[in-house]
């Protein structure tokens, strides 16, 4: 199947950036730096766009300002203001234009604007109100959620299996007891008021053993996932090494390897550069 020019550009950019980033495996070099800064710049640009079109516009502009502009337009504005209002209110549904403005959102806007006062050395203290609000709000939202999800749910998961104790087979009962011992010993490890001496030391060691067993399992599981990601990326490189992609992988590999050799040779000629590292 023939590849379109747009697809070909995508393939070349993808393969090229992948190999530039992988060049970090050798050491920090100009190719990696180029990829790093490009990635950073693109991600910030993308973030700004997403913030405007997926956050500011639907959550502030449309529910608050758009209905106000529509009302203003209905009063009959003329001149450049009228043209602006026509332009600003085009492309929206009558429901959006006719909805009552949600003035509560202006509180959020005001708090957001206060953050920009950080740019003024004299007024930067005002921005603390916004941060105080955010930290307070964040804690208020997080604490009940943590009590529910991390405390009550975990307690339930430990205790509830015992509800089936009467009908449970022997191995299931052993499992329940192991979990109970594991949870209790681990909790004792996390008691900071008790010095790890004598029986407490033994119990907390058992707790740490349980923790390490679970961490080991988690480590193995995640590493397997990462390997799958690596295999996927390498598969892409192999797929794009053929004539259909104009040998993108081989060309970029040659550029990266050749470039690294040239860079190393140049560095050796200028020894002061190497001193920095």
């Amino acid at each position, binding site marked *: 199947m023939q590849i379109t020019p747009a697809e070909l550009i995508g393939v070349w950019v993808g393969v090229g950036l992948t190999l530039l*980033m992988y060049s*970090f495996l050798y*050491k920090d070099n100009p190719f*990696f*730096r180029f990829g*790093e800064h490009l*990635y*950073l710049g*693109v*991600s*910030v640009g993308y*973030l700004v766009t997403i913030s405007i079109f997926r956050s500011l516009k639907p959550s502030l502009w449309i529910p608050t300002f758009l209905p106000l502009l529509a009302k203003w337009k209905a009063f009959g504005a003329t001149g450049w203001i009228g043209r602006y209002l026509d332009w600003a209110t085009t492309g929206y549904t009558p429901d959006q234009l006719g909805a009552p403005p949600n*003035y509560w959102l202006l509180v959020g806007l005001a708090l957001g604007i206060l*953050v920009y006062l950080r740019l003024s050395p004299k007024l930067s203290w005002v921005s*603390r109100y916004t*941060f105080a609000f*955010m*930290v307070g*709000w*964040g*804690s208020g*939202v*997080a*604490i*009940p959620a943590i*009590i*529910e*999800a991390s*405390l*009550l*749910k975990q*307690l*339930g998961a*430990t*205790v*509830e*299996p*015992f*509800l089936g*104790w*009467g*009908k449970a087979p022997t191995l299931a009962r052993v499992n*329940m007891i192991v979990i109970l011992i594991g*949870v*209790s010993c681990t*909790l*004792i490890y*996390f*008691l*900071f*008021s*008790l*010095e790890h001496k004598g029986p407490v030391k033994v119990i907390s060691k058992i707790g740490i053993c349980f923790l390490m067993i*679970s*961490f*080991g399992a*988690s*480590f193995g599981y995640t590493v397997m996932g*990462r390997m799958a990601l690596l295999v996927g990326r390498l598969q892409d490189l192999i797929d794009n090494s053929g004539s259909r992609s104009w040998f993108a992988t081989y060309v970029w590999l040659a550029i990266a390897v050749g470039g690294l050799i040239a860079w190393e040779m140049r560095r050796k000629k200028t020894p002061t550069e190497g001193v920095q*590292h």
Partner: protein
Amino acid sequence: MRTAILCLMLAACALAEQPLVPPTGFEVRDRVSSDDKGDGLLVVWKNSPSDGAGVEYVLEGALKKEGPWAEIGRYDSQKWHQVDNPALFGFSMDAKDWHYAEVVSIPNIEKPDQPIPLKNDLTFPTIYSLLGKLFPKKYPPVTLEPYHFRLKIVRGTETVDAGSGNGRPEKNVWNTSRNHVAVTALVICGTILVMIRVARRNPNLFVRRIPGLDAVDEAIGRATEMGKPVLYLNGLYGMDSISTVASTSILGRLARRIAAYDSQIMVPCYDPVVMSVCQEIVREAYIDAGRPDAYKDESIFFLTNDQFSYVASVDGIMMRERPAANLYMGYYFAESLLLAETGAATGAIQIAGTDSVTQVPFFIATCDYTLIGEELYAASAYLSKEPLQLGSLKGQDLGKAAIMVVILFGAILACFKGAESESLQYMADYLSNWFTTF
């Protein structure tokens, strides 16, 4: 044999002939649930002695008392018990004796495919209702007509009226189905407050050694000797995360020592709000240490809000700046190993602290010291020894001790589930319900 068959037939006839008994307790209530927008009502009624196979309840609704009435739904008399939906009804031992129906719309007789959604009474403070209090003539209170409901109990062709009533939905501030969470939070917070008072009277409360935090001084000292900065990362969560709050708190303590040692700190941030908070905290720390002149705003900077470009950039900083110590405190995802592995390659001393269970193993594998879970929260108290934080830590310890007791007691009690003793059964049920979350 004949006598037995005759008796059975007579009994069957007697049962079949028993008239339908309508349920009592019919009531229309406002729905109180999580994320309640004031667009739902609950119709409740008690079990009827006639409940059983083939018996069902028919609920009808209307916008006006005189009708027209439309069928909202049919409810099997052996199902739809309140006990099946604790999210709506909480935990009550008589919840199994009550039926319920949740209503969010009234059928539209003219357009059956467009049911009429229930509207609330604007009881929750809106701009309109606030203006209404100031200017009642210009903004009169909006009072909607109540919605009307009636219930019938049906068995085959036999139908008996079971009650009628009306109600208006309201927006609610308090979600009663989460009372148990509120009680737990109040108990824990109360304990912490009491322990803070105790810590203020006796500031020398014991806290066990946390090796990872003892190494912080070593790391700062190394950075000072080498003339290299300390790199501090806050994780990938915003200020609404407890781990980030803990991390910024540790940063304050750390910055104070760095300022005292005349060393340097670098804090590349993932979140702009976290960056601003960190700038404030570090500035305060430098002022406290008597070195306001040494503080540089640009040492705490925003990189990006994208996970892997952030990692690429921090890795680049590590390779170029070669910090003497890397501290990873906060919540991390897949980037943990990428960061810590690069840090290890630069030869920096590395200390990590995270409550991200899936990432702790990676930090353990690559860092010199790792604070596991709760140790991250304890770190600030451990470093500062301030009564407020020490008391909070002690309160949390008491909470954990209480949790252990609850687990042991609950496990023993749960074994009695299905036991003949009604009181033990009740306690086991209650305990089970307490742990239910929505």
